[in-house]
């Protein structure tokens, strides 16, 4: 009984959606004891392949073989001969109205089993000790959690099933670098204990640092398949992007703008602005901040520091409950959760394009005009889709984000608020987004940018403020200063 036998084999997998071939002739072999990294840029077919492997999507061609007897199965009586596959989705499936513990209890046990929050809390605490995964208190409502915490709950739910094969779709896209490292470290130990782990990511550094085996997908085909020890960064980059790598990692080149923007007009002005939600929870207190034409103001902050309310105040998506926010123009807004706050998955791209400012829209909706405008904006931002009638949900994450940008920036607004706009994007799409923000600044636009990635802020922003417990603190463009302010030890 080897701890390194095959856990999962895919042979000649092909999957089409309409005219689009998502995955073509892919072979994949995942072994017990290994962290198998599935690498590829947005739209390369990673998620489709993962869903096929997990049995959520039937392939058009090819086979999925999951050997019945396995070391993991033998080691775990609960799995009783079948290898259990657990998939952590990139988008969340927790019920917002329920608490963390209730979400964990969902789908467990029989009709008559009792809900025991205490036992679940203990389980989660044990999981925390075991994995280093930082979880919110079990009695918090999921709706009250920020994105990163919600994702950790998703991961916890999958881990609690003690799967033989654990699959994760972009698990670190919302975790802090430290939490990501902890997760990977745990994944490595977990795999070494005789389980199989499949991680879908676009981060080459993750693959190199934590992978055992790497498979690179490019345009739905396998571009490279190698053990980690037999490959390197250059080779992976070439496999992912071919020779067309357009957006290299950004040089920290914001110094050009350091000449000072004080004389430029203020486009968005927060004057002692505060925000309390309906339940009286204070998200932002007494925030004063000017965002001027021709600058990018960076916002850093850990989860629940109030940055998301700050951005929405600046964008005019919520009204301050104290103080004032003055905007010199309408503000384009790119929210973090694209599919919830920016797009309606069921509607066509054309209709999603019309969505912007639709409260003000009057009269008949001309489809020819809307189509032309949508198509023009889409081609300007390299949105890949067969036509403008495709439902937004069918685009890959990077394409969705480019589409949102194309829409928000279509009529050349003077101000843009962007909330972690590179979240979950590969290097190329991320570079594209950053380029769009920079050209906005060069046009004289005012940009407020939140990112969970300090390096991105340092590379992009002319000034940086940190949110900590609802307070907005101006800091120097210095990594250590930012980190201290985020942690509240400044």
């Amino acid at each position, binding site marked *: 009984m080897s701890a390194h036998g095959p856990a999962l084999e895919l042979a000649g997998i092909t999957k089409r959606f309409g005219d689009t071939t998502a995955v073509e002739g892919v072979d994949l072999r995942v072994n017990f004891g290994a962290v198998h990294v599935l690498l590829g840029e947005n739209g390369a077919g990673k998620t489709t392949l993962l869903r096929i492997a997990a049995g959520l999507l*039937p392939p*058009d061609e090819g086979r999925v073989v999951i050997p019945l007897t396995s070391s993991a199965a033998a080691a775990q009586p609960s799995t009783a001969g079948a290898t259990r596959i657990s998939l952590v989705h990139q988008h969340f499936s927790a019920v917002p109205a329920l608490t963390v513990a209730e979400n964990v209890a969902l789908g467990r046990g029989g009709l008559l089993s009792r809900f025991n929050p205490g036992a679940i809390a203990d389980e989660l605490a044990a999981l925390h000790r075991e994995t280093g995964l930082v979880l919110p208190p079990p009695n918090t409502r999921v709706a009250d959690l920020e994105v990163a915490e919600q994702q950790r709950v998703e991961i916890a739910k999958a881990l609690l099933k003690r799967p033989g094969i654990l699959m994760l779709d972009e698990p670190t896209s919302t975790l802090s670098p430290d939490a990501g490292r902890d997760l990977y470290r745990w994944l490595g130990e977990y795999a070494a204990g005789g389980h199989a782990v499949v991680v879908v990511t676009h981060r080459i550094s993750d693959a190199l640092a934590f992978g055992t085996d790497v498979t690179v997908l490019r345009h739905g085909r396998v571009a490279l398949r190698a053990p980690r020890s037999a490959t390197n960064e250059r080779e992976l980059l070439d496999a992912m992007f071919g020779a067309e790598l357009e957006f290299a990692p950004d040089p920290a080149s914001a110094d050009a703008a350091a000449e000072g923007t004080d004389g430029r007009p203020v486009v968005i002005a927060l004057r002692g602005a505060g925000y309390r939600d309906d339940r009286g929870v204070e998200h932002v207190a007494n925030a004063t901040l000017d965002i001027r034409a021709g600058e990018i103001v960076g916002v850093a902050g850990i989860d629940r520091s109030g940055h998301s309310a700050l951005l929405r105040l600046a964008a005019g*998506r919520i009204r301050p409950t104290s103080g004032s926010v003055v905007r010199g123009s309408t503000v384009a807004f790119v929210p973090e959760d694209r599919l919830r706050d920016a*797009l309606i998955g069921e509607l066509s791209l054309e209709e999603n394009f*019309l969505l912007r400012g*639709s409260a003000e829209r009057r009269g008949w*909706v001309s489809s020819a005009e809307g189509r032309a405008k949508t198509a023009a904006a889409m081609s300007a931002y390299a949105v890949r889709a067969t036509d403008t009638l495709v439902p937004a949900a069918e685009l890959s994450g990077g394409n969705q984000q480019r589409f949102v940008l194309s*829409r928000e920036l279509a009529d050349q607004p003077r101000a843009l608020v962007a909330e972690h706009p590179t979240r979950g994007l590969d290097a190329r799409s991320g570079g594209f987004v950053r380029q769009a923000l920079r050209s906005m600044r060069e046009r004289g636009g005012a940009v407020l940018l939140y990112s969970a990635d300090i390096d991105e802020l340092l590379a992009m922003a002319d000034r940086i403020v940190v949110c900590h417990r609802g307070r907005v603190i101006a800091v120097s463009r210095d990594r250590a200063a930012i980190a201290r302010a985020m942690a509240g030890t400044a």
Partner: protein
Amino acid sequence: MRLLGAARYFARTTLPAVAVGAGLIGILGVVIALAGHDAGDALISGAQAAFGSSDALISATLKRATPLMWLGLAVAVAFRAGVLNIGAEGQFLVGAVCASAAGLYLPELPGVGGPLIVLAAGALGGMAWAGSAGWLLRRHGVNEVVSTLLLNLLASQLVGYLVRGPLQEPSRTYPQSSAVPEYFRVPLLLDGYRLHAGFLLAILAAGIIALLTYRHAIGFRWRVVGLGPLAAESAGLIDVGATRVRVLLLSGAFAGIAGAGELAGVTYSLFEGLSPGYGYTAIAVALIARLHPIGLLASAIAFGALGAAGDGMQRNSGVPADLTVVVSAGAILAVLAYPYVRARWAVMNPATDPPATDRAANA
């Protein structure tokens, strides 16, 4: 090309209703047989009562379809925007009450159409009834499913009180109001048939709503609010709460017009059994048409025929008309199961494309 487009449009909007209807007639036969009656005989007398003559078709089927069209529109408009108005029944009754009061107490105004006054009164009544649920939703966050449903009970009690009190006919013998005077009655469309002008107005209204829904910014906002309220708020800057209340008011107005039309075009007087559950049937009417304003005209006629057939079977074959309720229930179940069955079908037959989902219709 254009013809093909029209055929597809018909297939998408009308065909599902026809198919469901055909299946349900089979179920009805089985139910009748199980209840110990001669299914063939009953179905034939039912069919005759619904379609057997121009009188059956117009004075029974289409007459019954008229309130279902208005009420179906009321339900479809609300559901489209994610507002689950279950209260069309109550709004219908209040519309009828207001129409009756207007017809009985308002003076005749030469130069102004009496029917328009009565229908407007009905629309206002339905709007007010729905508006109270809207106020509860907006001000106190009361779920509209609960409030509109409870307001139905209140409305039927209101009718019961009025026809024994303030609106009772002068002889105080029967629990009903006097008939509204000629001037206020909605005119009949054809001599000798009991189909009033509200039927044509419903078709007109459905056309307008279809245009608004699919071609106009107003209807676009309804759909957006129904499909993705958070995106509507964040990306569209739409006031989702206000939009929902407005839609609820419009829905109530349609339901109120249905009630006013029934009163001023069919019964002329108010009594407790004015609606044989039209407001609930309308939910099935709208859902079977997948909330499509034109499609629901067809499903309203189908349900109108079912009602007429039920009456006919009871008259001629002694089969209780209530058995047709089984069919209505079956129709609702079929509609509710549809998205699930379709999703299963997509999984079992991977060759076909994944189905587009229609969240508003499932809600």
